[in-house]
């Protein structure tokens, strides 16, 4: 399709403005992390690496980072197991209420976090009568992590149909052998992609986290929120933000490559 000269200029300008709106603030955060001004004043009066050193020594930040990683790992693991099982059930078997179950599994990703947060908070404290802790946070995160794993696995299973599994059983393999030797290897890249997305979702979640984390359980986003407006901590927060931005690109890139590879494999 050919675009006229004016159209190209207008569209190009819009693209630059939009991308600039997204990425310039990120650049500002980076500058703040090396600015000599504690109050993030603009323009930066000078540059220093002091905050980077402080950040790497900040026990609060490092503990929060650890908590976030552990929560994200466990929530993703739960999501991988349950999401895969659900995807197999819904793509391979017919049963009563199947469409409803499908909707109920996917819904948590669409529900406003504040609703999920309040609901789980109530359920944990009043219905179940337990104290909020790390595990309540993990369970809360797992509810929406399942969705990414489930969606990825379900799409892959539907694209392939049952032919490979039929071939496997025809050649003498039972249900579990077929899963181990055929279905799982076939799903592996989809599960990786889904798992990475789940990890990323859990890692920076803050709304549900606020309502379901026990006292003393601070994930990195919570820690940032608590420290952002303390004068002496603001530049340290900027450092952490930069580190997170860099780290978050990695799983996203891997997930994208895996999905692209999958699409190519299915197309063949």
């Amino acid at each position, binding site marked *: 399709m050919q675009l006229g000269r004016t159209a190209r200029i207008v569209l190009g300008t819009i693209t630059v403005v939009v991308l600039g709106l997204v990425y310039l603030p990120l650049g500002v955060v980076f500058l703040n992390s090396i600015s000599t001004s504690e109050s993030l004043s603009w323009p930066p009066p000078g540059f220093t690496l002091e905050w980077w050193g402080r950040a790497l020594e900040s026990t609060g930040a490092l503990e929060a980072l650890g908590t976030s990683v552990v929560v994200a790992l466990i929530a993703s693991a739960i999501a991988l197991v349950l999401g895969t099982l659900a995807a197999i059930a819904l793509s391979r078997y017919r049963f009563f209420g199947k469409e409803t179950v499908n909707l109920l599994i996917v819904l948590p990703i669409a529900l406003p976090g504040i609703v999920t947060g309040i609901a789980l908070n109530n359920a944990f404290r009043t219905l179940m009568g337990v104290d909020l802790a790390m595990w309540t946070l993990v369970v809360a995160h797992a509810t929406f992590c399942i969705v990414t794993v489930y969606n990825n696995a379900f799409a892959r299973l539907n694209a392939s149909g049952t*032919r490979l599994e039929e071939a496997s059983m025809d050649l003498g393999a039972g249900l579990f052998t077929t899963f181990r030797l055929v279905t799982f290897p076939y799903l592996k890249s989809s599960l990786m992609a889904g798992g990475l997305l789940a990890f990323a979702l859990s890692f920076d979640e803050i709304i549900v986290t606020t309502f379901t984390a026990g006292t003393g359980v601070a994930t990195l986003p919570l820690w940032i929120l608590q420290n952002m407006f303390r004068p002496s901590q603001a530049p340290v927060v900027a450092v952490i933000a930069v580190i997170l931005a860099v780290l978050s690109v990695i799983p996203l890139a891997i997930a994208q490559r895996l999905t692209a590879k999958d699409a190519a494999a299915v197309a063949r």
Partner: protein
Amino acid sequence: MESAIRLRGLHKRFGDTIAVADLDLDIEPGEFFSMLGPSGSGKTTVLRIIAGFEQPTRGTVSLFGADVTRLAPFDRPVNTVFQDYALFPHLSVIANVEYGLRVAGVGRRERRAKAEEALGAVRLAGLEDRRPHELSGGQRQRVALARAIVLRPQALLLDEPLGALDLKLREQMQVELKELQRSLGITFVFVTHDQDEALTLSDRVAVFDAGEVVQLGTPREVYDHPRNRFIASFVGSSTLLEPDVAAALGLARAPMAVRPERVTLADSGPGAPGTIAEVIYTGPEHRIVVDLDGLDARITALEPNIGAHHRRERGDRVMVGVEPAAAAPLEPEAA
């Protein structure tokens, strides 16, 4: 002799559709048996029921005398070559062929040897380490064959295995399939919608229509004596003769089918007079359509292309002859 595959009262319904209607069928050991029919005629469903992928609504499946109706696919001594091959994309060619042996717990060395032998039998030696997506359609087809025969099944089920290949390759694979079946000596059950393929390959053909076997016999029986209009037009081409047309040609006054190559044309002599309406040159032969005088009916004849010296033209007057033995009486249509 015990049948290799025996179907009794086999019935399969999908919702309101009857896919297979109370089918009885016996397939003999060592036989090349084709199930021929248009799509939706139930032939593939029957194959899938024999393999164990579908459960019949009622009826039984026996393999060499053993009732397997309720057995899972992995407990049945048959193997399948799938229409789209269904090779495992993440496994190499040799690992695909070894799969069944691996699952059965056969040792590494033994299964490697057997898999290589099977690959040799389908003339694929040397491609062991390729992945399925690196192979041509014909090669994939051979891997699928090797993967199934390596297990020495009591019967091999083939679901339109040549459908995805181009014509030249298909003809070559037909010959190889036939040779393979002869050398293995096992029953082949071959599903196809290609009547040519069914006639060329089979010892016996079952013609399917709307979930029923409408004719069962050797290729010669089915081709020379089609039982009804459907078979006469689906298997090869035929001219269907109404009773008065048959009578005018000197045959019994009944609905008949006649193959174009059994219709003779002559400049004079006995037969029914007519005028040539169309001459179609097909290369090896001429397809000649004749309007029969006073009958509002057409009949098609084939004449071999034997050179330019004797050529019929549109508008020529001819005498049309059909030997009584060349015409197949058709059963009256069920209302």
